[in-house]
């Protein structure tokens, strides 16, 4: 079984982002960048399937700037066998390459690579759209198992447990299929130094969007990006009695 794992370079989840002063976007110059946390979970899941003898090859693919090679190398250090970078200078967080365009790019790659399974993050923590996996499933005409917290693959049958608003839902999917990861699917490993060294030698192919015939003209114009209304810190109360008193008499919420 061949697994394709799309990943994305994003601002690290620990960074407190800043809106650009001209309100055109987020200032990402000189900010720590990482692999999107949900995508790391996707890579880990693919590697576990390979370790269990259920997968033969893992391909990590990303769409982004030249520097996204760093994230591909990270994926390789966790265990991806090879990588594909679709290189673009368009922004990948806002106002550039949108989920639909990413899905079209990934469809073109899937058509070439013919994977049996695509595992990807449920959402990227920059634009928070939560669309790409579902869109890719639609374009390929495949089944989708979104927000997965458990994946079971046995003799060609694929069962996925999904985190839904009311609890959990288990589906059986026809393969090939697309899985999008939720936080509880696994705990990604830390890559060890020897694996990081080995990753440097794994094959990484760089292609252009035009090689795949996809157009990155945005459909959504970013009119502006602004700071959210800030919430100022309130007061500290000294005791439980004081808290009850304020909630009853000042805030009037109980």
């Amino acid at each position: 079984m061949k697994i394709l794992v799309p990943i994305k370079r994003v601002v690290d989840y620990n960074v407190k982002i800043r809106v650009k002063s001209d309100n055109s976007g987020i200032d990402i110059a000189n900010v720590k960048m990482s692999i999107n946390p949900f995508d790391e979970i996707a890579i880990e899941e693919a590697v576990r399937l390979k370790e269990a003898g259920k997968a033969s090859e893992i391909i990590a693919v990303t769409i982004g700037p030249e520097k996204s090679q760093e994230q591909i190398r990270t994926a390789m250090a966790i265990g991806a066998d090879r990588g594909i970078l679709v290189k673009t200078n368009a922004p990948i967080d806002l106002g550039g390459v949108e989920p639909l365009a990413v899905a079209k790019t990934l469809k073109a790659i899937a058509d070439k690579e013919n994977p049996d399974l695509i595992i990807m993050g449920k959402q990227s923590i920059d634009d928070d759209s939560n669309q790409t996996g579902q869109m890719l499933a639609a374009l390929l005409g495949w089944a989708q198992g979104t927000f997965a917290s458990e994946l079971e693959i046995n003799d060609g049958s694929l069962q996925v447990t999904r985190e839904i608003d009311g609890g959990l839902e288990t589906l059986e999917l026809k393969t090939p299929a697309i899985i999008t990861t939720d936080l509880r699917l696994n705990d990604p490993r830390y890559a060890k130094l020897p694996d990081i060294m080995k990753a440097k030698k794994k094959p990484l192919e760089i292609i252009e969007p035009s090689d795949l015939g996809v157009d990155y003209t945005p459909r959504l114009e970013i009119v502006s990006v602004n700071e959210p209304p800030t919430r100022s810190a309130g007061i500290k109360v000294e005791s439980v009695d004081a808290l009850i008193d304020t909630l009853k008499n000042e805030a009037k919420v109980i």
Partner: protein
Amino acid sequence: MKTLVIAEHDNTELKSATLHAIGAAIKIGGDIDILVAGSNCDIVAQAAAQISGINKVIKADAPPLEHQLAEDIAPIIVDLASNYTHILSAATTFGKNTLPRAAALLDTQQISDIISVESADTFKRPVYAGNAIATVKSSDSIKLITVRTTTFDAADAAGGSASVEDYSAPASSELSKFIKHELSTSERPELTSAKIVVSGGRGVGSEENFAIIEKLADKLGAAIGASRAAVDAGYVPNDYQVGQTGKIVAPDLYIAIGISGAIQHLAGMKDSKVIVAINKDEDAPIFGVADYGLVADLFDAVPELEGKI
């Protein structure tokens, strides 16, 4: 302008999230139709027809639609799409799962999780865990949108008398098959629409200790929420998670107990009217957004609070 709202339901009950999505549709203006797709879902279609201001209810009632799998619902939306300028659903796990599939088939760039309607083609949505708000203008001819339910008023569930039209759904794609549900059952209010939410974090320490959170919640008639850390540690089920990648809540009162206040958690609750934090670390970031902070050991403060309220 003509909007189709995708109803969320379990074949017996229309979920309140739908009313909030209709709230956004009202802001857009024009006629509003509702799609109720399910199996034996007539009772839901009838309820939808009662909603004030609805033009028409479209009912797709067929056994393969019982579990409303995205692979089978999306083609229905695609088929109906040409009659509409906007197609909306709530940004619930159902809406997030289904609508992008339809959007891709329609070659449309969906707009996720809107928090305001600026005009028929321009919307605001939070990005970067709510640390920035993007105003986006869509150039697509049909706009597919998911709606953050906490920022739009619910439409009035009564007072309407829309007609119900039958729609015969195409055969199932049979791409996916429902196996089972493990749904949390609770007598407490639903997390995303509760007036009061009591949330516990890693500080609560164990599943057993969560009983003190439950007692306080029950005293207040509140829903229970949790941080990711509390869910990951197995103190509570996944559907309790509040935050960037969990549920968004905006109750009148949010009580955060033993929660540090990571940005990913704040993203899900900082629009609450009044925020109370109980934490033993006076420097915990949660105090930066709390209206009322109590620096205390939760194992002393929470039982005392519950006893005295």
